[in-house]
């Protein structure tokens, strides 16, 4: 009996042991943690785009793209049309946007690479170029007329690696942003003020917006100016405050000369402390939104839209869309150009070549030419219109490429959100201009023309080249970069003195930045800024 039982038991235990082995293997995937939480106008260029490949069988291209969750990748009419037009089969992998770059790094490290992937052009791009993971495209791009026509030489500079000076990606071309500010015109009218053009006027208007009850509710619950939303570092420098910082020769995007005529990393510029001190004074006085330091994403937009802040930075082309998004009366808000630079007296638009990342092709891909052929077609007028506007008849009624005007209904626009997006579009701009200019309605376009286009005559546009040395420098000293961002914030909030701040800048940061600064000045001597008076 006992031996029988033992024999039978050993059988069950063997099954159990097998289960235990399975458990061991599966637990190996988890580490030691709790279950599933374990890891916790078209020209001649357009016609030749995909033509050379159109007679042959379609090539399957595997793509890894950063797409918004609204896009439906199954039975997508825009993708189906693109496949037909470009004679390809698109196999798209679109990881969640919030973990896109982590996933991309894993894919790149795994060696199982796609034919095309979208990515940034900073540290990872430089690293992968250096490691030989990315195809070199210098000798090839000349064969693709739409790529050369739709992407300027300056824009190609974005995908030219610092390490070898070669092109390792196809930029996703964007149109230029021109950062000015939006002001509550009703408040200005009530307080009988003019929109500010200088830093002093700006401070006075911000003060009045804060202290003189511009909304007339009898409470002191308004503030002059709000900003924020810098995803990378602190909110001391954000695109939303470019209209203000350009008065001091700064912009979130590097490239503006300082008052001494040289190019600096922000912290080493002679204008750095004067700017921060002005912001510090405004912070102390409470005329800048004190919460701006901690705002993420669009929180600062909501502050302005709620009628509690009177001024916000904005790109001129987005005024109408912004007002529509927050259901604000367009007549109550006006757009204005940046404050005058303290050294030159100009209002400056800082305009680096505008790309929205780049499409990179792994060196191991067997479909490099097919990938380039597809990207070439996507940069043609047909490709641009399809990916931006969807299908004619379904997503819009008519489109004027020369004017950038579209006739579409709200229902058509709603349908478009599942079919494509600017994330899916392989070109954000066609020949330097975005798909819809000024707005969807004549009223919106009139406002845009009156406030943004007309005002350009009073602005000097600084067409600066891509300066990649700065982001590479910052990435090479992550601790000091983080310390600088923290000290900037603490200085503005009054937490540290000027001496304490200077000690870090002069003692630690300046020596580190010396070589990069020399490199940038040498680079800028070879790639000088093209200045253009607006509307020239």
């Amino acid at each position, binding site marked *: *009996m006992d031996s029988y039982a033992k024999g*039978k038991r050993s059988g069950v235990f063997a099954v159990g*042991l097998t289960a235990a082995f399975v458990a061991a293997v599966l637990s190996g995937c*988890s580490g030691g943690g709790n279950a599933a939480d374990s890891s916790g106008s078209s020209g001649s260029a357009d016609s030749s785009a995909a033509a050379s490949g159109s007679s042959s069988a379609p090539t399957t291209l595997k793509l890894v793209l950063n797409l918004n969750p609204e896009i439906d990748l199954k039975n997508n009419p825009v993708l189906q049309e693109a496949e037909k037009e470009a004679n390809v089969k698109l196999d798209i992998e*679109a990881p969640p946007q919030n973990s896109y770059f982590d996933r991309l790094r894993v894919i790149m490290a795994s060696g199982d690479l796609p034919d095309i992937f979208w990515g940034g052009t900073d540290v990872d791009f430089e690293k992968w170029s250096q490691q030989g993971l990315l195809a070199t495209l210098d000798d090839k791009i000349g064969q693709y007329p739409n790529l050369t026509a739709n992407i300027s030489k300056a824009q190609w500079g974005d995908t030219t690696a610092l390490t070898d000076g070669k092109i390792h990606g196809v930029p996703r071309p964007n149109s230029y942003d021109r950062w000015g500010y939006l002001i509550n015109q009703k408040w200005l009218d009530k307080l009988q003020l003019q929109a500010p053009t200088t830093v002093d006027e700006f401070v006075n208007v911000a003060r009045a917006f804060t202290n003189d009850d511009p909304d007339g509710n009898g409470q002191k619950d308004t503030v002059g100016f709000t900003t924020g939303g810098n995803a990378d570092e602190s909110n001391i420098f954000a695109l939303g405050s470019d209209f203000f910082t350009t008065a001091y020769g700064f912009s979130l995007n590097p490239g503006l000369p300082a008052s001494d005529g040289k190019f600096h990393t922000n912290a080493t510029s002679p204008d750095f402390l004067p700017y921060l001190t002005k912001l510090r004074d405004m912070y102390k006085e409470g005329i800048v939104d004190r919460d701006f330091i901690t705002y993420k994403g669009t929180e600062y937009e909501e502050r302005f839209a709620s009628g509690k802040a009177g001024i916000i930075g904005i790109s001129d082309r987005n005024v109408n*869309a912004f007002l529509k998004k927050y259901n604000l009366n367009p007549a109550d808000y006006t757009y204005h150009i940046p404050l005058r630079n303290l050294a030159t007296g100009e209002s400056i638009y800082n305009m680096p070549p505008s790309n929205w990342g780049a499409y990179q092709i792994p060196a191991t891909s067997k479909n490099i030419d097919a990938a380039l052929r597809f990207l070439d077609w996507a940069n043609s007028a047909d490709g641009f219109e399809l990916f931006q506007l969807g299908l004619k008849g379904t997503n819009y009624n008519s489109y004027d490429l020369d004017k950038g005007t579209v006739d579409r209904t709200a229902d058509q626009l709603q349908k478009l959100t599942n079919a494509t997006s600017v994330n899916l579009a392989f070109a954000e701009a066609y020949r330097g201009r*975005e798909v*819809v200019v000024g707005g969807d309605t004549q009223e919106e376009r009139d406002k845009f023309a009156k406030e943004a286009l007309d005002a350009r005559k009073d602005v000097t546009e600084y067409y600066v080249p891509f300066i990649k040395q700065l982001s590479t420098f910052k990435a090479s000293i992550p601790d000091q970069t983080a310390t600088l961002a923290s000290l900037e914030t603490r200085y503005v909030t009054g937490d540290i003195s000027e001496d304490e701040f200077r000690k870090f800048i002069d003692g630690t940061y300046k020596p580190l930045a010396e070589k990069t600064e020399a490199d940038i000045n040498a680079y800028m001597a070879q790639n000088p800024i093209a200045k253009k008076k607006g509307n020239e």
Partner: protein
Amino acid sequence: MRKKQLDDWLVAGVSYAAVGLFALVCVVPILYVISYSVMNYSDYLANPFRLLPKRLDFGAYRQLLHFDLFYSGYKVTLLITLAGTTLTLLLLLLSAYPLTKTRLKGRNAVLSFIVFTMFFNGGLIPNYLLVKWVGIYDTVWALILPGVISVFNLLLMMTFIKTTVPEALEEAAIVDGANELHVLFRVILPLSLPALATFAIFSAVGYWNSYFAATLYISDRSLWPLQVVLRELVVENNMGMLGSSAQLQQMMAQTRSQPFTLKMATIVVTTLPILVVYPFLQRFFVKGMLLGSVKG
């Protein structure tokens, strides 16, 4: 005597006040989320600090229900929670029971092999490659199998069986004619139910809240679990920035015209099921915390 009564009242009063305050601290964020999810977006913009809505507005929920991913996310999460939890329990029982038997040949080797993974694991990229090579990449199994068993839980389960089920009981069952399967499923299983119930809850909550595996192993959007969909809608990326194109702004205005209240509605809808069942299962959590802590 009266003074003692007064003291008792005082102690009780202070205790209730402290506990009440603590409860308030816990409840207010939940109320906040629910309240803002049904708040009119214009009212929210006008006064972002209003705790109770001026008027009820279900616009955020309507916008949320337009997301197809929301429905597929729910389905996937329910599937992985049910299947994952079932598999976890089955494997826990099947692996823990034999490993409690000291006379089992190779037990120590297997146990060492298992415990080894508690301290060392392959890491992100080897796991990614493993999932690809075994052919479960971009399938629902990639959300279930990696981590289906926690070594820690396995050890707890072994301890529980060892300390709760007397060997004599197994012997008695065998004497009465039970075979091994009968012993396992008619003796060990019923006596292990409290522990299994606790592991079921931990596992179910773990699967319900899991998102990392999906961010790594899933490309097909219809296989994104609810938490990934939630994260995509709630966590800000650069899409709302004023520097993006007017076209993008227009399209965003179509689908996310009230970003903040939409976030709150998303949080409510994704956490509601677990919030509803939690009070009924709380006692198992408490029991689970004590599991294996005292040798009986």
